[in-house]
């Protein structure tokens, strides 16, 4: 890890924070990606859910804007077998839904709010993730 990586990490993290503050200022909402996106997994969407779609479009379009302003998005390397990918995806979706949040909702917004639930959730998911990586090495 060199100084460039640290600067990028701090800059990127600040942008994520800025996004969360902006969404709170405008719509009064927490920037929890699992919550925002899974709200669209419903058969009874109303006009009140349109902001979710708009947020998602922004999230998807990020790399295009990044390229448009002259940068190259970093490579995304996924060297996981398909079966692990499916297992991981199901567990992430199931767990975020059951636990009411993921890295963004609990890890960023929740800790920033000093929510005891989010602090506990973050400690728990970091712990099980570290154990999982340790066991799968």
């Amino acid at each position, binding site marked *: 890890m060199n100084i460039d990586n640290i600067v990028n990490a701090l800059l990127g993290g600040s942008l994520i924070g800025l996004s*969360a503050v902006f969404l709170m200022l405008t719509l009064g909402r927490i920037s929890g990606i699992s919550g925002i996106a899974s709200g669209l997994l419903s058969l009874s969407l109303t006009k009140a859910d349109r902001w979710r779609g708009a947020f998602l479009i922004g999230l998807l379009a990020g790399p295009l804007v990044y390229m448009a302003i002259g940068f190259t998005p970093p490579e995304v390397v996924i060297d996981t077998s398909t079966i692990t990918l499916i297992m991981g995806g199901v567990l992430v979706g199931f767990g975020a839904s059951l636990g009411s949040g993921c890295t963004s909702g609990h890890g960023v917004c929740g800790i920033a709010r000093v929510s005891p639930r989010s602090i506990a959730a973050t400690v728990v998911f970091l712990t099980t993730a570290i154990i999982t990586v340790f066991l799968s090495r």
Partner: protein
Amino acid sequence: MKELAALIAGLLFSLGLIVSGMTNPENIISFLDIAGDWNPALAFVLMSAVVVTGVGYRLVWTRRKPIYEASFSVPTSRVLDKRLLLGAAIFGIGWGLVGLCPGPALASVLTSNGLQILIFIAAMAGGTVLQRRLTKQGVI
């Protein structure tokens, strides 16, 4: 205007993930791999995001209401229940298996090669639907 605000927020979030390198699962796994060649980048990302969000939220909450809505929608529960802790534990296992969580997965749809990211997102949606069904049936 609500949609435009949400679009801008989504875009900023995505750019933050890209700039910080968090869309690459390798950077997540190498952070979680504390017994290996540890890469602390994720800690710097989380720390700066939490500080900016924490200070910003407090400034925003001096307002009576958000700009485009009648009130703030912030969770109020403080109870550490089984669902929260079990859900977080399950989420962490999936996150550690692949190195992807919902934000980075969605932000990489248009740049990653191949179908893998779409498979992961479909599985995530499946896991969410499964959880809702089991909860509706009173299983969990």
